[in-house]
């Protein structure tokens, strides 16, 4: 599904190097968790996967289903099945949530050569996904994310993910800001999407999310590099011991 090879990237504007040789492979159907201290480059990696222009890849490559995506713009990547659930979803005043969802869904379908959804079919899907995630439909009458609480924004991201049915789901700290019940609801939503053809890159600081969404692999990103890879027990170890030992080992 995803092969990141010796990826080096810097902030396009001022040149600070943030990723310093990331190597990471995610297989079809795999759930890979990425952990790591604040500022280690997790969000940067997720943005680069989604194609944000603020970052410049200086070395290495990202292969998605065997092909480099570096030349693709964010919309093309999305249409090919890459989805990023943002750590901080943006509020976009003036853009109605429903218009946005429908435009996005149909743009992706069109890019893939599929027919656009009829309005009733679209409404049916939104209603059903919203119900699964216990999102009040009235919220969707508002402009995109405007006035949503922190947790509501996170849930709305997962709603988008469920509707767009991506192949590679990158979730950046989806658990932060969610209350205990919401965490469970969101995790159920994610687990319902699990399939042999869909992979997840779950960025998190906490074991709690991984109790619900059990990862196949756990990777520690530190100073722009993966310094340790293990199975779900690695996350438990980190929870108990913190990062210092692993960082020392790597050094």
């Amino acid at each position, binding site marked *: 599904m995803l092969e990141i090879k010796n990826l080096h990237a810097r902030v396009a504007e001022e040149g600070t190097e943030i990723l310093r040789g990331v190597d990471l492979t995610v297989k079809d159907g795999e759930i890979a968790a990425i952990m790591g201290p604040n500022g280690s480059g997790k969000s940067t990696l997720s943005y680069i996967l989604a*194609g*944000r222009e603020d970052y410049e890849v200086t070395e290495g490559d990202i292969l998605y289903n065997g092909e480099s995506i570096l030349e693709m713009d964010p919309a093309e990547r999305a249409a090919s099945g890459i989805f990023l659930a943002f750590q901080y979803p943006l509020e976009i005043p003036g853009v109605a949530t429903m218009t946005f969802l429908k435009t996005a869904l149909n*743009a992706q379908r069109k890019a893939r050569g599929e027919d656009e959804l009829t309005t009733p079919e679209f409404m049916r899907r939104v209603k059903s996904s919203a119900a699964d995630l216990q999102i009040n439909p009235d919220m969707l009458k508002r402009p995109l994310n405007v006035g949503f609480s922190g947790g509501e924004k996170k849930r709305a991201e997962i709603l988008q993910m469920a509707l767009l049915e991506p192949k590679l789901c990158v979730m950046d700290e989806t658990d932060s800001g969610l209350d205990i019940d919401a965490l469970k609801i969101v995790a159920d939503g994610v687990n319902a999407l699990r399939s042999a053809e869909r992979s997840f890159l779950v960025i998190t600081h906490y074991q709690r999310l991984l109790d619900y969404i059990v990862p196949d692999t756990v990777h520690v990103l530190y100073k722009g590099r993966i310094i340790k890879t293990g199975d779900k027990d690695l996350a438990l170890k980190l929870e108990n011991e913190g990062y210092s030992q692993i960082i020392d080992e790597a050094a």
Partner: protein
Amino acid sequence: MSSVTELRPRTPAETRLLQLAEAQGENENVRRPAIEALRREGLPTRRVEAWHYTDLRQLMGKRLGEESAIEALRESGETVLEPFLHGSSIVDLGTSEGSHLPKGVSVAKSDERSDWKVTPNRLDRSIDTIRALNSAFGANSSAITVEAGAAPDHAIELRPGVGLSGHAHTRVSLGAKAKATFVERLDGNAQGAPSTGVTELHLGEGSEVLWIVDQEKGLDAVHLGQLHVRLEADSLFRLFVLNAGGGLVRYEVHTDVVGEGADIQMRGVNLIRDGQHIDVTTTLNHTVPNTTATETFRNVVTGGHGVFQGIIKVARGAQKTDAKLACNSLLLSDEGDFSAKPELEIFADDVVCGHGATAGEIDADHLFYLMSRGIPADKARALLIKAFVTEVVEELEDEALQYVLEARIDDWLSANG
């Protein structure tokens, strides 16, 4: 008031305007003094503060037609136009005739003229430029009255005459507690002739007006308009200006709030492309305590020049005035520019007043977010541009009107966005 007359050669625009004014047939005795005043004072130079960003002498020169075009203008006919809002009554300001006027609303020809010695824009010269031109062109004068308590259930659309008679002077008076919607329809005008409109709008106690300006003239048209509003106690004046056409356009709105409890809500969208010069100049003049006003203009600039001048004036004693104005521009190309000049002039100490002007490009983070959901760049940009202007349209909280305005904005954006 007296002015030192500058001795300077007449510009082509001034010469041409005087020719056009002389070519008018009617109201000679009214026109003459205004023509003479213009002959004496000329058009304002950039040193006149009110016209600093809109240099009429230079901008008009390019846009007024040749002398030989006068005959064609005289003959230019009516255009067939659907009403802006479905079911509106139409008032022809060229003849002061109304069709299917609702109960409680009347229209009559009037002898009243726009008084160009009154300058509602304090920054103008000893003569008011737009009013002087309006008089010099022999504007037909109409008086429209909405009786006290009347609340017509459909809008009244005001249409100026065409060609040489594209000049209207209108007094609109609302009795106490009357409630009405007006559409000032500024649409295609004969090429080469300027049009002017001066409206005096009087809101009686507790009355409400929604005033919509739909300006979609051709890209070579010149229009100078002025709306002067007087608000009695507890009245509500709502304004929406759509500028989506015109070559050289200045629309002035000057409000005098003279009764306590009055409220003003001004909104507007200016869509500007190459070759256009669009100017909106406003005054919020609060002279009594406890009045409120909000004003927001959103501008989309793909080329050309936009101007916004807006002042909030609060007189001594006009305590508890709450007035805010904002002018936000989205600059989509290096080819266009927008000059915004918001001002406060406050002589009371217990007030809440604020103003702000912003100009920027499309937010790169917003664009990324939309694109990350698979919306292609051009479509994502279009959504964001639309969102930027839709926000003020939504504040009208009137679905039918919102639908009509958005359709027009969509047309413009798909042709120019």
